[in-house]
């Protein structure tokens, strides 16, 4: 398993390899729960994401993926370890990152369009320009006809796509995405994946992409990281994806190398998930 963590081709994962967008070094995360011992969600863990690298994170439910993203975003203070962003230790919020939350996070008092436009406006973009770009982005995620709806008037998948537009329109250097395509149908998922890859190819953002769909993880990313079941979750696998770019998210699934990778990662993941239920499942 150690070999999985340190593969020869995995230069970017090792510290000091130059431009690291995100460096989590020995980061551990705990939650204080009233009247209970501290819950150690994530054991000391290191994860390095190079500038322009697309890292997918998979792991059993409740292992600590969201928690890890929260720490990278600066929303959660790790119990131990260091978080560095482009070489600088992170203090406060991570201003370089855009974060697509797992939960609904749209402002309910703004229409879909305003929710997207505000992301630009706070950066100083004029309103007319922000609205134009917002409209364009909503079109890209397939919501051109829903611009003036309030969040509660949208379906779950539609809200998620508004949130996606909200994050992407700002064009951040680092993208943190927590199950961005969760409530979307397979077809829409692929379309969105292609959209994301196109954007990423243009100016090579660093991406941390949490998903439960292993195929999606392989199809999109440069590296797939596997977390063990919690508590005290750790990274137990780190697989570089050596599929050629640019990729077509649909066609790539026919590639034999894809299947080989899939099988390899799946086996490790499966063992891990079974552990979660080990004693508990009926």
């Amino acid at each position, binding site marked *: 398993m150690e070999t999985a963590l340190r593969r020869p081709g995995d230069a970017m994962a090792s510290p000091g390899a130059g431009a690291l967008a995100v460096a989590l070094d020995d980061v551990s995360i705990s939650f204080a729960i009233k009247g209970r011992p501290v819950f150690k969600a994530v054991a000391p863990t290191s994860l390095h994401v190079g500038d322009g690298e697309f890292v997918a994170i998979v792991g059993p439910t409740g292992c600590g993926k969201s928690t890890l993203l929260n720490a990278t*975003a600066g*929303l959660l203070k790790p119990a131990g370890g260091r978080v560095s962003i482009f070489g600088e230790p992170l203090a406060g*919020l*991570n*201003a370089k*990152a*855009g*974060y697509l*939350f797992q*939960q*609904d*996070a*749209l*402002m*309910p*008092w*703004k*229409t879909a369009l305003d929710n997207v436009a*505000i*992301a630009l406006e*706070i*950066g100083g973009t004029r309103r007319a320009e922000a609205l134009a770009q917002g409209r364009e982005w909503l079109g890209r995620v397939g919501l051109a006809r829903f611009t003036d709806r*309030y969040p*509660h008037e949208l379906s779950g998948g539609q809200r998620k796509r508004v*949130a996606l537009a*909200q994050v992407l329109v*700002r064009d951040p250097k680092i993208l943190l995405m927590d199950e961005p395509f969760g409530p979307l149908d397979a077809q829409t998922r692929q379309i969105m994946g292609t959209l994301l890859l196109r954007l990423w190819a243009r100016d090579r953002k660093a991406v941390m992409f949490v998903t439960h769909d292993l195929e999606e993880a392989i199809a999109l990313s440069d590296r797939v990281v596997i977390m063990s079941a919690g508590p005290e979750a750790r990274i137990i696998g780190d697989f570089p994806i050596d599929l050629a770019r640019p990729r077509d998210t649909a066609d790539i699934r026919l590639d034999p190398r894809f299947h080989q990778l899939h099988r390899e990662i799946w086996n490790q993941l499966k063992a891990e998930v079974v552990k979660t239920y080990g004693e508990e499942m009926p």
Partner: protein
Amino acid sequence: MKLHPAKLLFLQVLVAVIALAIWQIGATVPIGGDYLLPEFFFSKPWDVLSRVVQLFVSGTIWKHLWITLTETVLAFVIGSAGGVVIGFWFARKPVVAAVFDPYVKMFNALPRVVLAPIFMLWLGLGIWSKVALGVTLVFFIVFFNVYQGVKEVSPVVLANARMMGMSERQLFRNVYWPSAMSWMFSSLHTAVGFALVGAVVGEYLGSSAGLGYLIHQAEGVFDVTGVFAGMFILAAFVLVIDWFVTRVERRLLVWRPQAASEQN
């Protein structure tokens, strides 16, 4: 369960009629030798109504009404603006809030009646001392609600807004303010009444005009009919102000899903 407006109006009038009937009976029909609502303390509905009409017909009421209106509106606006600003400020600066918390609560507990002489000393006998009294009532109601409203902002929405890079000011405009709005309006509905109470009590304690003055004068000569007429005008009056508040509220809260209890 939506009522037809005409039916609603009918029911509302019905309630008023029943209340007036009870009043009339209580004031004129002795029950067990005693009146339930002795005329000396309660007058009679018909007398009160005709006095109200007379006040309006003779025109004496307008000057008083105007003064009280001015005071009420000023107290309401200043008090709620203050409550909103300080409420937000406290909510965003936990240290400030923690330090001043006991003092705010202490001030909230001071009986305003006792403060009247001090306001008169500082602000004179004109409308401002009455406005000040109203403000001390309105302020605390709005303040506590806004303070709580800001703290109730959804953590996820807030985190999202902060990740977008919003400054404190932008957060205020785009997150705290709209989110605390329903708290604010809830407190405003209470505050409207209290603004008027403040103004009237101020007038009652010292003034030369206004509804409170009228009521006080009537009370001094044991003219209960006059007192009730004054209170009646007062109450009708607050409905008008509240109607404006409700309109603004409807306007600003269009984004809300229909209230859960109104569905189905």
